[in-house]
C-alpha cells in the first residue's frame, strides 16, 4: 500500500517543481487575456452602472444607485425575471425528462437509432436566429402551421405571437424543440458509459426493466443529469437570440428575458449606464447560481 502511495506522490512532487516553471511561462498570457477581456469589462460595466450615459463621450452624470432603483418594481423587468424562471422550470421539468426518454430509446442498438439521433440533434445545429425566424412564420395565424391546424379544426385563425397571455409559450415551445436534442446526446453519451455487466447482473437477479432503470441507470447517470441541468439553467439565463426574431419581446413586453430586456431597454435606447446595471444584475445572478450549484449539487462529481 505504502509503496504504491510513494510512486504516486513522487512524480507529483517532481511535477510541482516543474509546475512553477509552467506557472511562470503559461499563466501570464492567460491571466492577461482574462484580465483584459473578462475582468476589466466586468469592472467597467459595474462602473458605468452608476452613470446616466448615452454612450457618447465619457460617462459624466453620476447618479449613484438610481439605475438599480429603476429596476426594482419595474413591471417589464419583473416580467423578464418571471420569464427566465419559466424557461428554467420548463427546461428542468419537461425538457430534461423528454431528452432522457429519447436517449433511452436511441442509445440501444435498435434499427435506425443513428438516424433518430441525427434527427433529434438537427434543431440544435440550426442557428438560433434562423430557428426564431422560421417559428415566427410557423406561428403566423394567416399563413403558418398554426393556420393549417386551425383551418383543419374549423376554428378561426389564432395568432399566438400576438396573444399577450400565451405568447411566451411560443418561446418555450421553440426552446424545447431546439435544445432537447443536445441533452439527448449528452444522455446517450452518459448511457454508453454505463457498464453493461451491471445491468446484465441485475437482469439475472430478476430485476424488472423499471427497477433496473431506477436503481442502476438513473443513479449512474447522476453526474450527467446534474451537468445537463447546469447547462440548461445557465443557457436559460442567457436566452436572447431566439426572442429577437420570434417576438421582439412583444406583445406589450410580455416575452422578454433578462438579456433581451437589457438589449431593448438599454442598448437600443442608448442608455448604456442602465444596460450596464442590468448586465451586472445578470452577472451576479449567473455567478451566484454557478458557484452555489457547483458547491451544493455538483460537489461529488
Amino acid at each position: 500500500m505504502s509503496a504504491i502511495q510513494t510512486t504516486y506522490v513522487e512524480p507529483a512532487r517532481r511535477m510541482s517543481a516543474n509546475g512553477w516553471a509552467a506557472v511562470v511561462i503559461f499563466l501570464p498570457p492567460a491571466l492577461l487575456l482574462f484580465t483584459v477581456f473578462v475582468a476589466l469589462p466586468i469592472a467597467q460595466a459595474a462602473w458605468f452602472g452608476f452613470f446616466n450615459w448615452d454612450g457618447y463621450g465619457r460617462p459624466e452624470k453620476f447618479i449613484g444607485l438610481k439605475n438599480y432603483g429603476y429596476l426594482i418594481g419595474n413591471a417589464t423587468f419583473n416580467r423578464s425575471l418571471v420569464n427566465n424562471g419559466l424557461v428554467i422550470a420548463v427546461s428542468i421539468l419537461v425538457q430534461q425528462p423528454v431528452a432522457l426518454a429519447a436517449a433511452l430509446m436511441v442509445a440501444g442498438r435498435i434499427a435506425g437509432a443513428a438516424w433518430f439521433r441525427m434527427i433529434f440533434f438537427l434543431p440544435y445545429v440550426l442557428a438560433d436566429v434562423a430557428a426564431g425566424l422560421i417559428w415566427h412564420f410557423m406561428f403566423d395565424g394567416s399563413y403558418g402551421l398554426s393556420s393549417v391546424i386551425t383551418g383543419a379544426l374549423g376554428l378561426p385563425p389564432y395568432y399566438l405571437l400576438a396573444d399577450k397571455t400565451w405568447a411566451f409559450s411560443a418561446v418555450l415551445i421553440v426552446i424545447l424543440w431546439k435544445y432537447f436534442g443536445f441533452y439527448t446526446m449528452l444522455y446517450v453519451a452518459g448511457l454508453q458509459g454505463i457498464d453493461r455487466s451491471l445491468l446484465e447482473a441485475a437482469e439475472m437477479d430478476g430485476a424488472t426493466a423499471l427497477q433496473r432503470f431506477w436503481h442502476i441507470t438513473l443513479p449512474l447517470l447522476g453526474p450527467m443529469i446534474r451537468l445537463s441541468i447546469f447547462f440548461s439553467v445557465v443557457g436559460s439565463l442567457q436566452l436572447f437570440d431566439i426572442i429577437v426574431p420570434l417576438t421582439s419581446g412583444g406583445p406589450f413586453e410580455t416575452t422578454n428575458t433578462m438579456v433581451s430586456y437589457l438589449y431593448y431597454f438599454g442598448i437600443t435606447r442608448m442608455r448604456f449606464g442602465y444596460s450596464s446595471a442590468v448586465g451586472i444584475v445578470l452577472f451576479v445572478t449567473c455567478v451566484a447560481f454557478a458557484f452555489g450549484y457547483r458547491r451544493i449539487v455538483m460537489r461529488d462529481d
Partner: protein
Amino acid sequence: MSLRHLAFAAACLAALTAPAFAETNITVLHVSENPTQKALWNKIAADYNAEHKGVNVQFKYLENEAFKAKLPTMLQSDDRPELFYSWSGGVMQAQAKAGFLKDITADIGSAESALSPIAVDAFKVDGKVVGVPFEVGEVAFYYNRKLFEKAGVKAEDIKSWDDFLGAVKKLKAAGITPIVVGAGEKWPMHFYYSYLVMRIGGEHALADAKAGKDGGFKNATFVEAGKRLRELGALEPFQPGYLSTKHTESAGMFGDGKAAMDLMGQWLLGMQAPNSTSGKGLPEENIGILSFPIVPGGKGQATETLGGINGWLVGKSAPPQAIDFLKFFSQAKYAQEAAATAAYIPVVKGAEASFTNPLMKRLADDLAATTYHQNYFDQDLGPAVGRVINDVSVAVAAGEMTPEAAAAAIQDAAEQQ
C-alpha cells in the same frame, strides 16, 4: 546587388508608396438597402474620385441596428468614418455635445442656399452646421384604390378625423381590413400618435412638451392624441395578429391587397412589391396617397408634414475634402437624377420637377409646399424617449394603457434623461 537591381527596387518602392502618401480616404458610412440609392451614390463617388486625383471617396454599408449600436464606439476609435448617415434629431445632438462632429458653418458657406431650409435647419446644433441633408420624407396614408371603390369610400372626401373613422367603418362593413400596421416593431404605430399630436397641438406641440411646458408630455395635447388613437383602435381596424406583424410583412400585406390603407413613409412604394406573395405587389396606378386628416378643433393644418430628414454628418477629424465632397454631392444634377429615378426625395429646391413617378411627385410637392415639417418623433427625441413613444403608441391603440398613463410614461422617460 548591382546598380540596376537597386534602381529597380527603388522604383518599385516608389511605385508602391507614392499613391499611399497622396491618397486621402473618405469613408461615407450609410444604412441604405435601396439599390437605386446605392447605385446613385456610388456613381457620385466615382465621379468625384475621377475629378479629384488623390482623393478616394467610398460609400460603406452597415445594417441599421448594427450602425446605431456601433457608431458610438467607432466615433471614439481611429476607425471613425469621415462622413456618416444621420436622421438628425436627438442622437445627432448627443454626438455634437460629445464633440464628435465638426462645425462646418464657415466651410459650407452659402453652398446650402440651394437646399430646402427645413432640412438645412435640422442639421444645425446651437446654430452651427454639423451636416448636410440630402433627403426628406413624408409619412402619409397609402390606399388601395380598388378596395376603396369596393367599399364605396371616396378618398377626396376624407378631410377630418371623423371622415377618416367613417371610412374605416365603411371598409370594415364591406369585409375589408381597413389598415395594415407592423405593430410588432412598434414604430409604425407611433406615426399615428405623432400625427395626432401635430394635428391637435399644432407646430409647437412637441417643442413645448420637450421644454416641459404645461406638464411636459403630460399636457392636454398628448392625452387627447392618445384618446383619439384609442378611438381608432377601438374600431379594430388593423389586420388580425397585428401586434406580432413585422414591418416588412405589413408592407407585403399591403402589396397583396389584404388591407386598404397603410400609414407609412415613402419607402413603402419600394417595399410593397418585393414583400408581396406574388412578388409583383399592387400596380402603382392602384395606389393613392392621402394626407393625414385634420382633427376638428385642433391647431394643426393638413399641410403640415411628418417625415424623416436624412443627411451626412461630418466627423470631427474629417479632412477639408470631405466637406468639398458634400458640396459636390449636393449639386442639382444629382438631385434631379435622384428624383428622376425615384431613389429618394432630394432636398435641392426645384428637384421635385424631375419626378416622373406620380406618387413620389405628389410627396415631393407636399414637401415643397409644407407649412411645417416635423422630423419623426422617435428621432427628434432620441432613442431613450423615442422608443417609449413607440411602446406606448401600440399599448394605447390596443387599449392596454390609458392615454394619461402613456403621457406620464413619456414624461418619466424624459425626466430620467
